[in-house]
């Protein structure tokens, strides 16, 4: 956990922010437990798709590949996932297809950027345009899935006071799975041999190559694994969170996710915290509208999450360092 919050330094902004959030949370919980639980749960719902989408970015960029095609990956996989689930009347098959679509889309990205050494921004843009065009063109209204991934309480955990209702209650299985997946990715990147290789390829592919690591292979696998997560998010939104496909349903989440990834310093737990913070700001803005705060125009209230994000970015700026080899084509030197 040390990497998550840095060393516990009272002056550290991360420490202060965490402490502030905790204090506000406890205060609100004491003041009105039900509403607080509802807001935190809503923050999780807003934040989880963003958090998972930023994992796609982290998987790719840690290995040195910029992927701005997250938006398109999610859109395409949500599309195939939903229509396959609708056709086969089986949401499990739908989700599997969504994940496979994500992997395939990212494989195309990997092929273009790693194999053919195309510009990575252009490759990502192509995927976004392709996804938006194809899904709009092939879109047919009126299809439904037989059921969606159910919402339920996790037994025992949901009864923990304070956090139980906020985190382990009235969410779907993919939402809960995210709570396991994100720490798992953190372990993968920082605690395994594969993660070490990934990071070395992202920082200094030349040295990694000299040390006998296949740069191409490591990058390929990371990008495709990232795509699998992207596919999961597409399926998550279309088959669980919302339960239907609509045109351009991603609504910019893929780009927000990239910002959260940077805010989280390319660290899965950091990006997760950033996404939840953003989600909480969103849920709070909704809650202010529910409370009916009348003396502030609603345009300002709905702006809050964005203002909040800008403030946090301003205070945390200046220390961001992306993986050194990110965005650069790796060409093996010919002997």
């Amino acid at each position, binding site marked *: 956990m040390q990497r998550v919050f840095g060393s516990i330094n009272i002056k550290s902004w991360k420490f202060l922010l965490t402490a502030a959030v905790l204090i506000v949370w406890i205060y609100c919980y004491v003041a009105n437990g039900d509403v607080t639980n509802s807001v935190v749960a809503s923050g999780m719902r807003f934040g989880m798709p963003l958090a998972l989408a930023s994992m796609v970015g982290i998987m790719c960029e840690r290995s040195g590949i910029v992927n701005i095609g997250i938006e398109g990956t999610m859109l395409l996989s949500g599309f195939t996932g939903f229509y396959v689930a609708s056709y086969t009347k089986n949401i499990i098959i739908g989700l599997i297809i969504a994940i496979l679509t994500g992997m395939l889309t990212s494989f195309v990205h990997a092929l*273009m950027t790693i194999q*053919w050494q195309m510009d990575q921004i252009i490759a990502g843009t192509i995927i976004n345009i392709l996804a938006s*065009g194809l899904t709009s063109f092939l879109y047919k*209204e009126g299809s439904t*899935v037989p059921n969606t991934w159910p919402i339920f309480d996790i037994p025992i955990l949901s009864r923990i006071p304070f956090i139980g209702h906020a985190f382990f209650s*009235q969410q779907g299985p993919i939402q809960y799975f995210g709570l396991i997946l994100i720490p798992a990715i953190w372990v993968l990147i920082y605690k395994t041999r594969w993660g070490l290789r990934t990071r070395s390829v992202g920082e200094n592919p030349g040295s990694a190559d000299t040390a006998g690591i296949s740069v191409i292979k490591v990058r390929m696998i990371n990008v495709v694994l990232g795509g699998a997560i992207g596919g999961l998010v597409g399926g998550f939104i279309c088959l669980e969170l919302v339960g239907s496909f609509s045109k*351009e349903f991603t609504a910019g989440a893929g780009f927000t996710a990239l910002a959260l990834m940077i805010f989280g310093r390319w660290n899965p737990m950091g990006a997760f915290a950033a996404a939840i913070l953003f989600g909480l700001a969103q849920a709070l803005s*909704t809650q202010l509208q529910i409370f009916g705060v009348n003396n502030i125009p*609603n345009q300002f209230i709905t702006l809050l999450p964005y203002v909040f994000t800008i403030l946090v970015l301003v205070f945390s700026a200046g220390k961001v360092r992306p993986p050194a080899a990110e965005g650069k084509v790796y060409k093996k030197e010919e002997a």
Partner: protein
Amino acid sequence: MKKSLVAGATAVALAVLGFAAPASMAATNDDSKCGTAGVTCIGVVTDIGHVTDKSFNQAAWEGAQAGAKAVGGIANYIESNAATDTEYGNNIDLFAAKHYNVIVTVGFLEANATVAAAAKYPDIKFIGVDQFLDTTKTTPNLAGLNWHEDQAGFIVGYLAGYLTKTGKTGAVVGMNIPPVYRYAAGFQNGVAYAAKELKKKYPVTKIIYHPAADNAFSDPAFGASNSAQLLSQGYDVIFAAGGGTGNGGLARIAKAKGKFCIGVDVDQWNTVPEAQACLVTSAEKLIGAGVTDLVKSYKAGTFAGGNVYGKVGFAPYHALSSKVPAAVQAKVAAVAKKILAGSLSTGVK
């Protein structure tokens, strides 16, 4: 070198695939006789949606077809594939060149192109669906078809007031623009009116607007999450009004047991079948009927330009009819009648 060629070719091929959605024109109706006396030709230019979108475009297209049938004419459509004034203008020109008599443009995005085209072709009648006109700047051959959304909102709000058990009602809507505001404010006043009749004190109906402009009507995750937040705080009748954003809300509310949701614009029983478990009705704009009436007025020679108001209403209860007591159904019908006749004000400006 070879590699970059392959890469370039792939890029181009993929990009072309993405853009490969050509403007399609239904040539099923022979329009070669347009322009001769006694033949009425109606052309519909959609915005970027399709005529099968089960929403605005489809309704306008069906209205044009019904109008054509009523006056013994023909109707054709062109689907626009870019939301630009040039694209809309070109599509209008295609109909104008073939001497169509009435051209229907769908959606406020086409407003500028329609105003310009109406000035360019004074002999053709134009119908701008959902286009509120500044009549000091428009020509008399252009009619802007609008609706009193607050009336539809009031009627479904009144129903919501009778359906809610907790007294808590909410609206999850798109951007705060006039038609959306009118829907939401009408809903709010409708609930309050019902509460007054019931002699109950309900908290004010909550309206949740979407913050961003570019995806305010296409953010289902926003609609779903906000609806869930309302549900978890005991709100049991929710008006989800705002394109894809609202549809996300409807689908989510359908997952909760014993809650009601209300759709918007068209009868969403068909457009969002996922929501059938909760969808008690939809606040409707009768788009097709509005277009048909204007086409008929053209034939009758009574076509008047300027802002015209079409009818609003509410959709049938469908399978949820059993959940709405007959007495309530009668009350709602009575209030709807009063509202539509103008004898009861919605209180929304």
